[in-house]
């Protein structure tokens, strides 16, 4: 396997992950796009070495590159294209609604984090008046 191709896959993945951990939705879109590139290159690299274009009338089958990963990659490119555009539309929508394109913390998760205080309160109410037979004197 070509180390140069590996380097490209690895570098694009790194930058992609770096970008999708950002708060700004437009950066996340960028990140997804780069991850898409990395995935396609990984598919090609896994399919075998470089060669001639797989055209049956122009090159012998022995010297041409593996056509199967190329076909899969075409699908991948088109799907990641669709995904990128859809994310862009989402970012735009976010901008229309809130004025920026930042990803906010999940409200439901924050509610769960605040449960702690609520539960503390109710549990204490409960343990004060229970029937365990040991409060008979008090």
């Amino acid at each position: 396997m070509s180390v140069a191709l590996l380097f490209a896959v690895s570098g694009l993945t790194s930058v992609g992950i770096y970008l999708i951990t950002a708060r700004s939705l437009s950066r996340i879109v960028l990140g997804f796009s780069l991850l898409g590139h990395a995935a396609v290159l990984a598919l090609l690299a896994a399919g075998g070495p470089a060669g001639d274009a797989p055209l049956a009338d122009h090159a012998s089958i022995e010297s041409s590159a593996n056509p199967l990963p190329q076909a899969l990659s075409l699908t991948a490119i088109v799907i990641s294209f669709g995904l990128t555009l859809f994310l862009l539309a989402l970012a735009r929508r976010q901008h229309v609604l809130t004025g920026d394109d930042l990803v906010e913390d999940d409200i439901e998760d924050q509610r769960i984090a605040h449960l702690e205080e609520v539960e503390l309160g109710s549990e204490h109410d409960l343990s004060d008046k229970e029937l365990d037979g040991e409060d008979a004197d008090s």
Partner: protein
Amino acid sequence: MIWALLCAHAVACIAIVALGDRAGRGVFGVAAVPAAITTVWAATLLGGDEAPTAQRQWVEGLDLSFTFAVGPLGALMTVIVSGIGFCVFVYSAGYFSAGTPGIARFGATLLAFSTAMVGLVWADSIWTLFIFWELTSITSFLLVGHKSTSAANRAAARRALLITVSGGLALLAGFVLVADSAGTARLSEMGAVDGTTATVAAVLVMCAAATKSAQVPFHVWLPGAMAAPTPVSAYLHSATMVKAGVLLVALASPVFADVSAWTPLGVAFGGVSVMWGAIGALRQHDAKLILAWGTISQLGLIITLLSVGSGKATFAAISIVTAHAIFKAALFMVVGEIDIRTGTRDIRELSGLHRTMPLTFAVAAVSAASMAGVPPLLGFPAKEAAVEAVLGLSGAEQWSVGVIVIAGSVLTVAYTTRFLLGVFATNGEATEVAAQRTAMTAPLAVLGALSLVGFIFLDQVTKIVKPAATQVNKKSDVYKLIQWPGLTDAFMISAGIVAVGLVVGVVVARRSGSTPRPLGARAVDSLIDAVLIGATRLTGRVQHGSLPVYVATMAATAALAATPFLWAIDTDALYKWDSPAQAVLAGLAVATAITAARVGSRLGAAVGLGGVGLAVSGLFVAHGAPDLALTQLLVETVVVVGFVIGLGHLARQFPPVGDLWRTVRIVVSAMAGIAVAVALAASASNPTGQPPLEAIAQEGVEDGGGNNLVNVILTDIRALDTLGEVVVLLVVAVGILALVRPQKADSAAPALDAEVTL
């Protein structure tokens, strides 16, 4: 027959649920039918040699099957479980008023418990036993929490469930170890085991028995469980479920006979419980709680005797199990009737009941005397047997068990006296009493009479108890229950016990605040609360709501998971490059990507993205994939245009980011990149075969009729996938259209919000 009976229980359960509350107290009539049939069937087995078995394969190859075998002990327990069950069902019909809501739910759950309990006492395979063991815990939870509107009841039910099911877990672990070292899961085939594994298993099984039988320090759930309606207390928490632990100790003691830790552990659990339970009973004012704490004490006595393992002690233990089930169920029913007819169970409020409720008083007096071990009642010969068993021991064992039995018995007489005086004696103005209910009075009268009848026909009782005890311990074969032993040492000791106990009981009858305060339920509850709060805190910490941190966590985890691939890399499978152009383009792509990530303006980032796309297209060309290169160029152009249009309204610069988080992101993304490269290199180092180039070329040219193999694959070989791909694009297009349509959608959105807030 075993299957038929279990099915009868299940059918009756379903019938009760189907009938629902409109059947009123009739549900208990339905429930009593299978209990009655089971009692009669088991009664025919008593004292006989016949031991019916039943088996059904569950998982083949795992030695997992439902296996039942009703030996003498099983038959005795069945008569107790189903017989008292029958009485309790009749009693419930009197306890509940006709229109009580949830009466069908109660009846069905109580019968479900009864089913689980007979399954438990019939089980031969330890896995079958475990399943029914857990079922009794669950049904007990439902019954304790029956009046679920009260927070105290819910807390009590939760406590009972958590303690008994943690015991269940210990039991499962112990059983796994036992099955492993004994080589079989059948109790009837299991020989004695020893060694370290067996010791661990013995400790686990004993702890499980202690949780179920409410032994100190696991006893705290039982007094709380008194929140359940009284029929439940009479049935589960005195006569049957708490005996499951005792039964477990009885069944396991032949298996653990060679484990040296078994006896001391059982004696320790039992001994502490005898004292603690009796002390607890002496300081309660609620008549039901006096009995509950008394149950802890009595169960402690039984477990002590069973763990000792001498023939006489085992015989005494089984005798006490029988006597206890009868008198304790009767006493609970007495308290339930008093509760219903006077509206209170507090011994400080009750007065003059011996005159106003004569029949109930008679039953209570007989049963309490049986509990105290006074002749001529069934409790007396059972307690005599226990004292005899102590006299038969020697050394330190005699000393320790003797103290437990004698001191425990004295305290038992004391709290029994206090119970009787407190509930029935005249103490100021007589309490008002409502009319008698036959359905309640009849079963408690029957159970009360049984203590007496059992003593009169003591030889018959011996014939029933002896085979059951012999099943546990072969040496029990020679003993029998004796009505009148004469002036033996044991009898003198018994007389002394009763005399001292009476004095203590009369003295403390009216003053109870001075007794020590047992450790309680509050400690357990705060432990449970602490776990719950800890869980909430942990969830709050882990599930913080920040999407970037979630993504980073996942990426880091995935990267670390790829570590093993490092050892699968074969460096011979790697080479520098396919062509120098590839290396240059790869460098260019990565460099442009880094620039695009670092650039502060959105437009710059969009241009950078285009640059990466170009470089990747170049890589495609260098790899021999012109179709990909063409598609990539087209796609990249549209994406960059979309980027500029879509985000054109946003501020030009990205918002600033904190330094620490930035460093974390860089580390995580570098890890992820390396992990992907490592995984890919590992996959290249371990090829599983050659690509089917010939076949694809032949099929493409001959069947597909095209020379561009990539196109042929897309349009012929994977035509359906390509159709799906087109559909995805269509959906995306529709989605984008819906999202970016400006006016209509925006005016609709606030209106929707308003509706939601309403």
